[in-house]
Every structure is written in structure tokens, then in C-alpha cells.
């Protein structure tokens, strides 16, 4: 569902310096109307600084932030009309659940009868019907999270910002809330910017992911694009598990240990590396496919339920990590340490990135 009032966000040249450190370095980013975009990066990467800049809580050094056609860079936070879910939830402890959710409505002079109705609707949406009279300290972590969410969208903001809203929840609840947030986003259709350092969460929830590090945007793409075609070693390493091996060049092709990987891509990089996702490797030799073969000995193997995680020392002394489906392993003795194994990678699963090679 497309929300008529959803607004695109256009950020250009946004820079924020703390001393010598660039928290944001000439960031250009467009969030499409109604899109769910995740800012993904390690702590200190600048993702929260960027979100806070959109909300208006910090003052960038230069650049532009536009909601639709309107320049917002000088607009104080209370006039930006964006909903925000804080990492700490930031619920007002001296107000009840209903008063918290009603706070933005009251400020907008919504008449009491309408306000009550809207609060009830919001509570229903986040599945907390009937808890309006509760105090905040009577709620569980998951319930607080929902109240924070309800308060952020109850006044129908055209943009919703979320700062690691699920990081305080336990794993099970977090995974359920991811699905619920996604459904809620679909229902509201509001332009959403979501901040997380959890790559799995980013892959699960986003329409697009913006990977950020040292204050710079590294890559902006949909989850498949980010996972299957990482732009560089940082993205390949940060999102998903991966082994990165250097490639050799000769005669317009890239080689790994005398096996042809692919033609040299036309970029201005002089070196290339091979990125291997551990689950793409297989123990059985696939039929009718062009392959790379890796010969080595098992260094360590760990049974993890649905998969077996194996570290293999290759004969060229590089190390690769592999994840085999449990049902693809005929017997555990096959993966005892010091056993010799051959493992196969289809050329169609090969990911090549610039940099780090010889």
C-alpha cells in the first residue's frame, strides 16, 4: 500500500566533523517515498549521527536534508514532523501508556474524543489493547518497545525513524518484532529509515540497505545485491560470513591457484579478491557446472544443528570457512580434524571484488 503522504528524503553533501574525525563525510542518499531503508554499519560508523541529523538532534557542518521539496536542515526537531523510535524507547516515565501515545496528539491540539480513538487504534495496531492505563514501569521490554512504536506513528508522520529499536530484546522476541515491524511498515506505507548494526536484521527487513563506515556510504542496494554483489572487502566481510582469497591476474583473466575464475572486470582496480560465502561450497561435486575446486585438510569442525561449520586449511595454506547442510554430510568422521577434503564452488556463485589481491 502506498501512503499518499509518505515523503522521500534527499540527503546531499551532508558532513559532520567531530575534531579531526568525520562522523559524516559528504553523504549523498535518497530514501524513496514509502521505502524501508536500513542504515547498516559497525558502531561508530556514523549511522546514528546520520539518523540524528535527519531527526534534527544534531547540527551538521554542511549539506542538505530535504523532505520532499522542503529543505529541513535549519528546521528545529519539533517542527520536522517525523516519528522516531529510540533505542532506549524514551517513554515518559511519569505518564501512562495512553498519555505517552497521546502526547504528540495533545501537542497538535487533537480534540480529546478523537485523541482517545486514535490512541485505541494505535494500541490495537501494536497489539496492546486495554493496556492504556498502565504505567511504563509495569510493562515488559517488548511491550515498551510497542508503546514507543505506537507513539511514533500515532500522529501519522510522513517519515519514521528507528534507532536500533530491537537491540534490547532477546533473540526470539527480536525476530518476531522484525516481522511485525515489516508488516506495520507495509500497512502504514510510511518512509522509514532504520538503523542497526545487525546485518541479519538489515537483510530481513529492508527494501534497501545503505552500508556505512567511517562516515561514508559504501554501498546502497537491496539485500540480495548487498549479499551477492558486495562492493568491496568491508561490505563482503561485514554482511554475512565470508572467506576472502586473493586472485592472480594474467592474460585478461583472474585465476585462483591456476584455476580460471572469470575475465578481469573492467574497473580501475589493479588487484582483485574472491569472496566465498560458506554456504555456497559443497562437499559433493555438482554435475554439469563449471567449478572451482579447493583441496585441503579439515582444521576444525563444529556441529551446529542445521549446519556443520568447518574450517579447512587449503594446500596453499589459506584458510576457508565452510557451512555444510547437516544432511549433505554422510558421516561425521568425514569431517574429523586432519581428514583430507575436497570442496567445490560453482563459478556462478563466485563473487569477485576489487582490492586486496596480488
Amino acid at each position, binding site marked *: 500500500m502506498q501512503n499518499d503522504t509518505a515523503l522521500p528524503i534527499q540527503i546531499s553533501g551532508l558532513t559532520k566533523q567531530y575534531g579531526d574525525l568525520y562522523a559524516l563525510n559528504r553523504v549523498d542518499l535518497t530514501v524513496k517515498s514509502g521505502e524501508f531503508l536500513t542504515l547498516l554499519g559497525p558502531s561508530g560508523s556514523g549511522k546514528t549521527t546520520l539518523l540524528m541529523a535527519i531527526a534534527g*538532534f544534531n547540527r551538521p557542518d554542511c549539506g542538505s536534508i530535504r523532505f520532499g521539496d522542503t529543505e529541513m536542515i535549519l528546521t528545529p*526537531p*519539533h517542527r520536522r514532523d517525523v516519528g522516531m523510535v*529510540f533505542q532506549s524507547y*524514551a517513554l*515518559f*516515565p511519569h505518564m501512562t501508556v495512553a498519555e505517552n501515545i497521546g502526547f*504528540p496528539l495533545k*501537542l497538535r491540539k487533537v480534540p480529546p474524543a478523537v485523541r482517545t480513538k486514535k490512541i485505541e487504534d494505535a494500541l490495537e495496531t501494536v497489539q496492546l489493547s486495554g493496556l492504556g492505563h498502565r504505567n511504563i514501569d509495569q510493562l515488559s521490554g517488548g511491550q515498551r518497545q510497542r508503546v514507543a512504536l505506537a507513539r511514533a506513528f500515532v500522529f501519522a508522520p510522513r517519515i519514521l525513524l528507528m534507532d536500533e529499536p530491537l537491540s534490547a530484546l532477546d533473540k526470539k522476541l527480536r525476530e518476531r518484532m522484525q516481522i511485525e515491524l515489516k508488516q506495520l511498515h507495509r500497512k502504514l506505507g510510511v518512509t522509514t529509515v532504520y538503523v542497526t548494526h545487525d546485518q541479519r536484521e538489515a537483510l530481513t527487513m529492508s527494501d534497501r540497505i545503505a552500508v556505512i563506515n567511517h562516515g561514508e556510504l559504501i554501498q546502497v542496494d537491496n539485500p540480495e545485491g548487498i549479499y551477492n554483489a558486495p562492493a568491496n572487502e568491508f561490505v563482503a566481510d561485514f554482511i554475512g560470513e565470508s572467506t576472502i582469497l586473493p586472485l592472480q591476474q594474467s592474460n585478461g583473466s583472474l585465476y585462483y591457484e591456476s584455476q580460471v575464475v572469470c575475465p578481469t572486470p573492467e574497473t580501475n582496480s589493479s588487484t582483485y579478491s574472491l569472496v566465498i560465502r560458506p554456504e555456497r561450497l559443497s562437499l559433493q561435486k555438482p554435475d554439469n557446472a563449471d567449478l572451482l575446486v579447493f583441496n585441503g585438510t579439515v582444521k576444525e569442525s563444529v556441529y551446529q544443528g542445521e549446519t556443520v561449520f568447518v574450517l579447512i586449511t587449503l594446500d596453499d595454506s589459506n584458510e576457508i570457512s565452510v557451512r555444510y547442510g547437516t544432511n549433505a554430510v554422510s558421516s561425521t568422521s568425514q569431517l574429523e580434524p586432519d581428514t583430507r577434503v575436497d570442496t567445490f564452488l560453482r563459478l556462478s556463485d563466485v563473487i569477485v571484488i576489487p582490492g586486496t589481491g596480488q
Partner: protein
Amino acid sequence: MTVVADNTATNANALIRQRRREEWSVLSLAIPAALIIAFVVLLPVGWLFYLSFIGDDGQGTLEHYRKMIEYKSYYRVFITTFKVSILTTLICLALGYPLAYFLAQLPPRWAGFFMLAVLLPFWTSLLVRTYAWLVLLQRKGLLNEFAIDIGLWETPVKLVHNLTGTLIGMAHIMLPFLVLPLYNAMKKIDRDLMHAAANLGARPINAFWQIYFPLTMPGLVAGSLIVFVLCLGFYVTPAVLGGGRVVMVSTQITSILENQFNWGAASSLGVVLLVATIAVLFIAGRVFKLESALFGKG
């Protein structure tokens, strides 16, 4: 599963004994303090209470309390005491709230420095501070001479030996008692709450009155009560800076003892002051949920 009888459950009795021993050892830590309170507080107060019902002839009587109702002068003393205490508390609030806010906004290093400045007077003798105010405020004191020098006023203004002087001195001495709990309450307010208020559309003034101020209430109430109660029984400063013109209960007690050597009358004043103080705390406790204000979570 069958329930195993208590005494046969493995180590059950030994574990219970161990727990009891620990509970007793914790309790015993409180014994010295309990003894001190018994001898230094409860016993003398009980003695005063007893004395207040003893007449000059050594017989039991309500005479002292009757006098307190009959004589207008006693009435005036109590009014003065409450007036000075309330005014001092209000002055401390007016000065202390902005000061605490300022301290709470500072980066830790600077907050430490300014906090030291607030606390420094604490480490000086009360008497010294009071006489220092006398030096500053008297007719030919520093303040008057400076004000006349720069032409603020022409003849010396009476700043001491009256209510003004008493209030100035007391407010100065009481200020830290208000600032500390207030600062503490302000420091506990999550920055995100103020961000959230702004984000939801609250102008700074709204965010302050609807979010920040209510959250500082516990500290505000605790600090004000401490100041108010301390003021009720204050002696040195009103005696010196009031110059005999500001007669509070404590000064009155002294003069009764010095002039009439009447322990009974002095004791009855003390008892009434104590009861009034307890009443104030009780009412405040009912209205403001004092336990949560003083001891955090309620």
C-alpha cells in the same frame, strides 16, 4: 514425585541455619548506630518531653503549653520561624533550580569544578560563614561601600540585623542542600526523553514544563523539604544576622534558658517545634510520596 520430609532433605537444615547466621550478622552491624540513636536522640528528647510537663514547683502541669497559647509573643515566634523558613526555601528554589540545571548541562569535568564551588562553603565553619556575611553586609561593610562608590545608593542601606540579612545568610547556607538532590534528579533524566519530546512536536518550553520539570519533582521536593526542616530549627545565622530582631523558635529557647533558666518552658517550645516538623514531613510524605523522593524507587 514424592515430597521428601524436610529434615531428611539433603543439607536442608544446615542451609537454613547458615541463612539465619547471615541474617543475624547483618543485623548486628546496625547495633552501634541503634545504640547511638537511643542515647543521643531518643533519651534526651524523651527527657525534654518529660520536662515540658513539669511546672516550677516540680508538679506535673500543662502550664507551659497554656502560656504558649495565651501569650501573643509565642505565637509571633512561631509565625516568624515559619515565615523565615518558607522564604528561605523559596529563595533557594529560585536560585537553586537554574543553578542545578546549569550544572547538569555541563560536561563532567566542568560540572565537577562548579560543584566544588557550590560545596566549598560546606567545609567552612557555619559561624565563620555567618560572620563573613556580617562583614559584607553591615552599614560600613563591603557591599554598602561598593554600592555607594558606584552610585547605586547614597546612604548605607540596612542589610543586616533584620529579616533581609537573615534571609541572605540562610539562603546561602541552605543552597547546597537544595542543589544536590535537584542536580541528582536532573542527571538521571535521559537525554533521549528531551529528544523524544521535541521529536513528537513539543516546543522547548512545552518539553520543559511537561517532561523535564515533572521528572525533577522528586529532587525538588526532597531538597525543599530538607531546606525547610533545617530552617525550622536554625539558630546561629538568625541569631547573628537577625541581630535580635528575627526571633525564631531556637533563639527564643536560648533566651528563655538564659534569662529565666526555665527548662520546662524551653522544653515545651522544643516539643512543639519537633511535632510541627514531624507534621510537615508527614503531610509532605502523603502529598509527594516522600519515600520515592528520598530513596529513589518507591
